[in-house]
């Protein structure tokens, strides 16, 4: 049964209470809520499409999803990037069945309509014989994604013509994104093929896990930490036996984006069996980064374990160097796509080591990653029972202990173990779900740095 508009909104007001940290479990399994999410979150927000390094040359393309919509992202002759629904305008067939590649045209398997990289309908078999030359080809190009924009290598697409610009959408999260995208002059790249896996989880659970859940690390990943941890700098210990609240920050209140960051400038590499070459790279370039980004980010954040979440479904961990999007496939399933991330100024050997270690730790057989899947799946499944669906779950750790921190934007709680970020994530979710249009979605960048502070930082 579909709920009426008003009932749905009342309902959503009830489902989440981000002041006290409470979520109804139904948000992880309900079909109705999921449909609404596809429209109001995935149909509205800026969604990550591709990194420019993945389609460097004209004709390079990459196939991905926006929500459940299949799209192709294509580098144009003039170097710009366009994105289209991967669906033929004739009978709707999927135009491109490859994951990526380079092409001069996309020809549909069914009747052979072919589309050029700019989406134009370039060829129609038997155009004169069958259509008597009467087909207006200009009306049947591929459907373009409403807006496509780039922020320092990250390409995003958005269906909603009334959305804020990408720049405004990212807001203060750019302060942290730059720690990867703009730390070094050469910029950034994603490495290797896409690492894809199906998980039987609601899409919000992995997002909340990585956006704020430092708490699970010492417990869920105890086996991996025991096996590979090369230094003890994260302030977290095996088996959740201790916690260090000074070593890190939980940053939120930036338009629904969140960051977890250690402050030691090296701990991103704590899970590399041999971190030496990377530590040397950090050492050698530390001053450059300080010059570019300032003391705080250059000394404390660059190289540390940093988790950045761009609402709704993108997460990147400079330091640990993995980059991930979650494509929803129904309320209780996702496809998780992962890549290794690097800075272009890194020596080849360091990049190779990053690719290698990312695959080892957070790849498809990743020592750490393999601990999370079953937990997320089970949290989803346990929200589907008749009784469990009526229950709540809580993100109420360290309530009301956040504030401003010198040198950083955002509403900040101390330490990596807190549920501060999750509360902001669900708050943003609720704001979108209750809004009829973008105009009703609040914009906030709490404790934004003044120009002067930024300068000082």
């Amino acid at each position: 049964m579909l709920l009426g508009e008003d009932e749905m909104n009342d309902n959503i007001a009830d489902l989440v209470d981000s002041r006290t940290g409470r979520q109804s479990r139904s948000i992880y399994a309900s079909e109705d809520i999921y449909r609404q999410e596809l429209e109001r979150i995935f149909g509205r927000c800026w969604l990550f499409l591709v990194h420019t390094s993945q389609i460097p040359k004209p004709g390079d393309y990459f196939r991905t999803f926006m929500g459940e919509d299949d799209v192709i992202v294509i580098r144009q002759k003039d170097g710009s990037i366009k994105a289209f629904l991967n669906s033929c305008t004739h009978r709707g067939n999927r135009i491109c069945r490859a994951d990526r590649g380079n092409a001069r045209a996309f020809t549909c398997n069914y009747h052979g309509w072919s589309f050029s990289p700019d989406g134009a309908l370039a060829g129609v078999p038997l155009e004169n014989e069958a259509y008597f030359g009467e087909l207006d080809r200009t009306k049947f190009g591929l459907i373009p994604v409403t807006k496509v924009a780039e922020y320092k290598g990250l390409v995003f697409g958005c269906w909603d013509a009334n959305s804020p610009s990408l720049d405004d959408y990212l807001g203060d999260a750019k302060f942290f994104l730059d720690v990867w995208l703009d730390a070094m002059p050469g910029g950034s790249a994603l490495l290797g093929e896409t690492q894809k896996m199906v998980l039987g989880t609601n899409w919000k659970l992995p997002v909340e896990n990585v956006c704020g859940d430092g708490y699970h690390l010492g417990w869920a990943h105890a086996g991996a930490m025991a096996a590979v941890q090369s230094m003890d700098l994260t302030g977290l210990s095996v088996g959740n036996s201790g916690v260090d609240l000074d070593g890190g920050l939980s940053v939120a209140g930036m338009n629904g984006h969140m960051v977890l960051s250690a402050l030691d400038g090296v701990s991103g590499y704590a899970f590399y069996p041999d971190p030496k070459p990377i530590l040397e790279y950090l050492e050698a370039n530390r001053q450059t980064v300080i010059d570019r980004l300032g003391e705080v980010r250059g000394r404390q954040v660059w190289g540390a374990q940093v988790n950045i979440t761009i609402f709704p479904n993108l997460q990147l961990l400079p330091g640990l160097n993995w980059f991930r999007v979650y494509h929803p496939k129904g309320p209780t399933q996702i496809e998780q796509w992962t890549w290794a991330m690097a800075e272009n100024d890194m020596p080849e050997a360091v990049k190779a080591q990053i690719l290698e270690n990312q695959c080892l730790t957070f790849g498809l057989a990743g020592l750490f990653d393999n601990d999370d899947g079953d937990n997320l799946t089970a949290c989803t499944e346990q929200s589907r029972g008749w009784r469990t669906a009526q229950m709540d779950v809580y993100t109420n750790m360290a309530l009301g202990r956040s504030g401003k921190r010198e040198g950083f934007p955002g509403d900040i709680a101390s330490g990596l173990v807190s549920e501060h970020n999750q509360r902001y994530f669900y708050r943003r979710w609720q704001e979108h779900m209750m809004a009829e249009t973008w105009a009703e979605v609040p914009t906030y960048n709490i404790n934004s740095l003044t120009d002067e502070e930024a300068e000082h930082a």
Partner: protein
Amino acid sequence: MLDRPLAPPPVEVIVAVTQALHREARLLDNEDLDGWLAMLGKDVSYRLELKSRRFRADRSPPFPLGPGVIFNEDLGRLKMRVDRLKSGFVWAEDPPNYIRRAVSNVEVLATRADNEVRVHSVLGMHRNRIDGTTRLLTAGRTDLWRSEGSAWLLAAREIVLDHSVLPDSNLNAFF
């Protein structure tokens, strides 16, 4: 230089290596991981590369650093994985899952070295996780096996996984 075709390996070798593959599968099924490590050569290389679905005519170049991997292990790293599995902290494997491997399409081919054979095989791996969650993974394998003393040891394995999206939430298992 003209390569002379190699004579097929003696039947005893074919039988011994085939038996080794079956034994290996049984040890893994029974979680005798130390027994399995003992079947590996000291210089073992154990690899599974990532791939993507591309058009046959696609012209885009390979990645300079390679495609990335699911496994790129030497003996030390395999031991590390085994240590993790044995740490008692890998909650996803406790209670143990029901895993059964079937090895088939075994082809044992001679190489230039007398004590080494190249072996093609197919592995089907059934994993019954919690409740009714069952996954069937299939992979092709190309191995190098070496006889040392009375035993055949695995010297190298290239695995090709037949899934463009991994249909399971972890790979706490060896192929």
